[in-house]
């Protein structure tokens, strides 16, 4: 029995890794995000060419990260930078409706994390929590470390969206991150989702490792 279980787990993990890689190549960037970003850049080429230029660079970096995501682990600093580039684009698009609170000073910049862990979770928050609210809302990204365990919390007001179709897509992204965390930090990482008082919260917990 034990053998079967281990074999099953192993199989699950290898397919997960293969799938995760494939997904990373194919489904990372939401087409919705890509075309809206291009539209934003098209608008800005006349109104604010300098901003248009820098957003084009941000978009390129995001794509590069998506194509090169064969790396198993990157530094937290790199992931933070990537998430920031993503948020630069969304900020120009959504303006004052997107209010961002970053507080990740507690996380050592040399901590290792699977690439595209934080960014897609933040993207989910913007897509479901901020975009469909007329007044927008505050997106919080909070990091803490205790006993060599790092916790990242992403919090956003719950959207009013009632469509189940869009929720499904959300689950695929979350499941993908969960599997990659699991394969990089077996039995030491967690991804938790909760909602209360009108807020939606995703938490990732993983060990502080520098190599």
């Amino acid at each position, binding site marked *: 029995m034990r053998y079967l279980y281990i074999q099953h787990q192993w199989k699950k993990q290898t397919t997960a890794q293969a799938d995760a890689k494939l997904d990373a190549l194919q489904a990372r960037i939401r*087409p919705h995000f890509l075309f*809206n970003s291009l539209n*934003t850049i098209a608008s800005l080429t006349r109104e604010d060419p300098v901003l248009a230029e820098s957003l084009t660079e941000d978009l390129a970096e995001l794509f590069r990260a998506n194509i090169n995501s064969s790396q198993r682990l990157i530094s937290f600093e790199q992931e933070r930078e990537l998430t920031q580039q993503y948020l630069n684009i969304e900020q120009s698009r959504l*303006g004052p409706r997107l209010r961002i609170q970053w507080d990740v000073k507690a996380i050592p910049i040399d901590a290792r994390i699977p690439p595209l862990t934080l960014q897609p979770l933040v993207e989910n928050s913007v897509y479901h929590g901020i*975009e469909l609210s*007329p007044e927008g809302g505050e997106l919080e990204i909070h990091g803490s470390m205790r006993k060599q365990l790092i916790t990242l919390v992403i919090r956003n007001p719950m959207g009013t969206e009632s469509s189940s*179709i869009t929720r499904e897509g959300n689950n695929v992204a979350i499941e993908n991150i969960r599997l990659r965390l699991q394969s990089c930090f077996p039995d030491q990482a967690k991804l938790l989702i909760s909602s209360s008082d009108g807020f939606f919260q995703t938490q990732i917990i993983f060990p502080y490792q520098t190599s």
Partner: protein
Amino acid sequence: MKILIADDEPLARGRLKRLLSDIDENFIIFAEASNGLDALNQCISEKPDLVLLDIRMPKMDGLQAAAEIRKANLDTAIVFITAYDKYALAAFDTHAIDYLLKPVKKQRLELMLEKVTKLTPSQGQIAATDSLDTPPRQHLCAHSHLGVEIINVPDILCFKADNKYVSAITATSSILLEESLKTLEVEFADQFLRTHRNSLVNVNAVKLLNKNATGQLQITLNGLNEPINVSRRHQANVNKRLKK
């Protein structure tokens, strides 16, 4: 030509406005609507010849706004604009006079304008977007000679059918709808529960389920004085759903 642009992103509205003015500087362009509800209200007050509707917007999405604009009996031609939304594309494919993809090209806008000017007013309207792929509405609208009345679906305590009409009742108001209880029941199955041949109640507004002095099972709703009767036929289902 009077043109209304509805999009929740100011930059997206700005670009369309610029492209349209480049095509014809005499166009009168309204580019302030940032959600479907604004778009509907402005269509009613300004009566534009053409409205460009983004699909994914807060408050009321472009598809519902289109259906309500049509119900308001306006001669406004409706064109959808979307970044990418495969479900929405499927839903309006057969109804729209045109749809444009972001970022919109100037040549594509010109083609669309040609199409719109060739149409007679009645052709400019689209059929109701009653596709099963569209999510339940967040607002219901009643169109009368006084204009449009709008209520939030979560504020509705119950729907009551009376002969031809169905009323949607909130704690402070009620509006008459020209839809059947049956279609409302299907659309809002997640939030509303059939209690009787002539009523649906909002599950989240239920305060109490009990029997009155004559043994009639009834539901008391938060914000509504009069209790709602539960018929024997729906008793089992009501009990089951409210116990959860």
